[in-house]
């Protein structure tokens, strides 16, 4: 059990670092989704399945989706500005 706990801790640390090191927002949304999933697994390992369920649905699905949709809107606006310049 202790091996599992150490492994999941290292995984969370690695995934969290990956989110910070990813600079492109689009990629970051995907990496953050993976981080949300890993965090959910950590809650499961520590026997908090209720929290794990919320974490996976919100952290791995809802939050990245909001970021993606916001990015899509921003890109549409930037696209229009690019067209005006030409």
């Amino acid at each position, binding site marked *: 059990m202790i091996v599992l706990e150490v492994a999941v801790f290292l995984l969370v640390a690695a995934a969290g670092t990956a989110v910070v090191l990813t600079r492109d927002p689009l990629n970051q949304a995907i990496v953050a989704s993976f981080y949300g999933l890993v965090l959910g697994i950590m809650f499961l390992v520590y026997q908090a*399945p*209720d929290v*794990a*369920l*919320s974490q996976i*649905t*919100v952290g791995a*699905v*809802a939050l990245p*989706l*909001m970021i993606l*949709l*916001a990015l*899509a*809107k921003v890109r*549409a*606006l930037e*696209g*229009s500005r690019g*067209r*005006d310049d030409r």
Partner: protein
Amino acid sequence: MTPRLRRRVFLAAAAVAGALLLWGLTGLPDYGVYNGPYGDVLNRVAVAERKATNVVASVTFDYRGVDTMGEEYILFAAVLGVAILLRAQRDETEQPPDEDAADRRAPGTSNAVRVIGLALVGPVVLFGIYVVSHGHLSPGGGFQGGVVLATAALLVFLSGEYVTLRRLSPEVVLDTAESVGAAGYVAVGLLGVAAGATFLANVLPLGHPGALLSAGTIPVINLAVGLEVAGGFVLLLSEFLEQTLVIRRPGEVT
């Protein structure tokens, strides 16, 4: 502020914050040691007192039900704020989303995604209902199940069916679900007052532990929260999708 000065201010602030953090860490109990009495007491008495086999649910929806009501209204207020912020502005126009437009954000969905997405909608809805209705028996509850239900709507959109999504979830239905869910929590609370006990007191028959109809008000509150969360999240999703797919600023790429 020059970059040099800014760096110095940051280093000073980081040193203080780091020292405080380390100081706090030294005062924590050892790894795996639990000192608080409440968890132990609840583990001993909660199932007998409330007949809910998921002790977490009896804590969140009964022993500290008022806190959870506050949490529910945080989400309610957040969805309300998003709906107000993302409404169509005066200089924006709404256009019917044309799924075929080349630079629209409607994804060019492959047949595989379409089939898998639509095939998953049914099981996801069923799973969501299960998680909401069994919150007092097993891990889960209104919040988790509500978000699972909302992801069913997301699957419909991912299968390339934005128009279908709008037709399946008209705003009136979403608004009603969210409001009825939010009001339902308070109504269950007032039930306690009406019965001569305190607000949110568990006044319904408790039944036997493990039965679907047990634990008194806890499954009822779970149902209300499930409605509120599912309605709220789909509303949130719709508002974002509408901003991305339907609402156009003057000059914006269409």
